[in-house]
């Protein structure tokens, strides 16, 4: 297991370097100017040149990349051009909000999706299968930003039950005054992973239950409950792997949901950084999100290896 873990961890290094180069270069290839965010539109050329020098944007790109990488390795992602605040702090604050949102959405999506998928897999061809598969299909197909708007119209605007935007004035807590801000974005975000997990688990359960060993276990007199435990053990590694990928997508891909709900996470931060061409913030956020994605995949691989030792080979 240790050798397998070391090999997988070492594979992360070139991926991380590649990610940093690609994200740096892509951002600089895009048209636009980060100084547009802080200078009045009629700022003189002299003032623009002064500000460009002040922020180091007048240096050659390889120099800018080298300096950024060295600082990044020391945990310093520079300062946001638009706000002047340290990027590391900006991302850290936003990442906590995104982790909370993605975490709740993952738990919700996984729990509901796995339950529906398991039921459908066990009851193939019945009305239970058709209903749960329909729900899963809807979950995968529905555009989640549209669903978010619909939920806002129903639960916020019409019923006035839940807040439509933001994370509340009181700060993070387990109190309902905070949690109620989480409900709509988390439910909206959970819909796609719920559908994907449900479909995955359904097909896995169907495959596993059709195998001979399940019949053999039953024939040996094992209780249904015990047989199902074996089915779960066989289904779990793949379901976990899919869920890990989904968590990665949720952490990095919640930009639309966070924007629709003005949820102050990394997606909202990224959206702001894109529109203001805030290069340090954009580079830092993309790098952090990409690394989180890489690390989640690493974690899932290690977990799969631990659950099913055959994978280590």
């Amino acid at each position, binding site marked *: 297991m240790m050798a397998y873990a070391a090999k997988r961890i070492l594979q992360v290094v070139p991926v991380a370097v590649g990610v940093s180069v690609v994200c740096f270069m892509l951002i600089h290839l895009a048209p*636009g100017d980060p100084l547009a965010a*802080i200078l009045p539109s009629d*700022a*003189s050329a002299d003032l623009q040149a002064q500000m460009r020098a002040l922020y180091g944007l007048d240096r050659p790109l390889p120099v800018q990349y080298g300096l950024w990488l060295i600082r990044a390795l020391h945990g310093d992602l520079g300062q946001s051009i638009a706000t002047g605040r340290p990027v590391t702090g900006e991302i850290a604050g936003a990442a906590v909000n995104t982790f909370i949102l993605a975490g709740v959405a993952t738990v919700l999506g996984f729990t509901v999706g796995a339950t529906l998928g398991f039921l459908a897999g066990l009851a193939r061809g019945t009305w239970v299968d058709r209903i749960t598969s329909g729900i899963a299909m809807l979950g995968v197909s529905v555009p989640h930003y549209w669903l978010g708007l619909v939920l806002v119209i129903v639960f*916020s605007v019409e019923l006035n039950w839940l807040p439509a935007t933001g994370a509340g004035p009181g700060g993070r807590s387990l109190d309902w005054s905070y949690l109620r801000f989480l*409900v709509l974005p988390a439910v909206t975000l959970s819909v796609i992973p719920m559908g994907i997990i449900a479909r995955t688990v359904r097909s896995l359960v169907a495959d596993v239950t059709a195998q001979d060993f399940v019949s053999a276990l039953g024939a040996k007199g094992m209780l249904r409950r015990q047989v199902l435990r074996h089915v779960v053990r066989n289904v779990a590694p793949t379901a976990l792997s899919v869920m890990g990928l989904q968590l990665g997508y949720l952490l990095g891909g919640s930009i639309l949901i966070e924007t629709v709900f003005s949820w102050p996470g990394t997606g909202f931060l990224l959206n702001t950084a894109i529109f203001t061409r805030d290069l340090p913030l954009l580079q830092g956020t993309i790098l952090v999100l990409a690394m989180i994605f890489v690390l989640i995949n690493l974690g899932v691989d290690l977990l799969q290896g631990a659950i099913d030792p055959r994978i280590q080979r």
Partner: protein
Amino acid sequence: MFDKKLKGLAIASALGAVLALGGGGLSVARAQGVLRIGMTASDIPLTTGQSDNGGEGQRFIGFTLYDALIEWDLSHADRPSVLVPGLATSWSVDAADKTKWTFHLREGVKFHDGSAFDASAVVWNLDKLLKTDAPQFDPRQAAQGRSRIPAVASYRAVDPMTLEITTKAPDATLPYQIAWITLSSPANWVAQGKSWDAVAQHPSGTGPWKMEHGFVPRQRAELTPNKNYWDPKRVPHLDEMVLVPLPEPNARVAALRSGEVDWIEAPAPDAVPSLKAAGFSIVTNSYPHNWTWHFSRLPDSPWNDVRVRKAANLAVDRGALKDLLGGLMIPAEGFFPPNSQWFGHPTFKITFDLDAAKALMKQAGYGPDKRIKTKVIISPSGSGQMLPLSMNEFLQQSLAEIGIDVEFEIADWNTVTNLWRAGAKDPGAKGATAINYSYFIQDPFTGFIRHLQCNLTPPAGTNWGYYCDKDMDALFDQVRNTFDQAEQDKVLQKVHEKYVDDALFLMVAHDVNARAIDKKVKNFVQAQNWFQDFSPIVME
């Protein structure tokens, strides 16, 4: 087995029940006297003194926490705003040396931290923006303030209550420039460890509002009244004003309709009918905003012919465009809104007259077999751009009627801003002969001079189309050398008449500064200005 299925369904039902539990009585209780505003900005504007985020930043942070030496009169809705004394009670230019200005400062004013306001504080603030080796120099505030005071050459405190500013050349527009500069407390900067980052969370100005508890980036800022404000008439009546960044238009509407905020800036035109039906007020007024096409005047541009420019202006049915925007625009009759003090009496009437437009095109040598084909830079969205795609497509169809075929070069707002700065000659313009851009036209420089003065072509300024006319430059010189306000207004009217009579732009629309407000919000007077006074507001 069936029990397990039931259990699974029960879990799903329970989740539904949890959602439903959000139920009645859980909406935020609204304290009496607290006004919550949904801004279009994605973050709290810069709080240290010279705010960012354009007009909205100045509106909600610049002129709430801070004051300028000269301010805008925001107390009337029925006439254009004019400059009034702020932290300076009077100002005058030296009769013998027109570059030397004296400002007499207001006595007894204190910053929120209790320190006294005087001439040395003004000098300190100007150094903060202009003197790069000053300890308090702040690049972020300099980026905002420096370009607003291009005339300033030097300044000094004559005595504790008298300030002298010397300009690079005689410039009668200095008071308009000074009205941009909001003054922060030097003593507070020292108290905060000489760190502007620390000041951001503990700002101190002399304005009618204070920020006593800092702010949460991208989430909220809470302003409380400055009960000791120097102008008793402008001491805020509210207990608190909360600013919430809500950049997404649908999120702003939802926040208003669900009772999370009481006021939103810039509701989308298509949301207005539903907001009105739900009982919200849509407050609008004329203000110095402009939505135009700037024409290239490079040699190969079709817009060099005044007949073509006039024909384009006559080909647009602005009434229909107004309907398209749900009534949220003022049809352009000139470069400034019709009720501006600088509108004057142009002879060219901008109306919808397709026959006259076609006749002008014919005179210019164009017709069905000889059409103009040209390219225009537009953005799909952007600050102050209203509904740019729909509006530009409307113009495209209108101009096609008179033989002008327009192809769009679409770029995002940030890129269009850069292209506007770079000028029509820049390769990034890709041969476009016009650019759609909207902006602030509140003072002589931003309203007139920057667009058309010969020496302000890129990179020196934003004369995008490389227009140059010695008569126009002579008028601009006259504006800068007319120190009597009423006389200067007359010169500015002449400038505007030339803008319109020469049809120097495709003049289309002025925004109406729309905001949707809960009926509980009372006593708001929407001034004809980018900035507003929140002091008289009460919550019913």
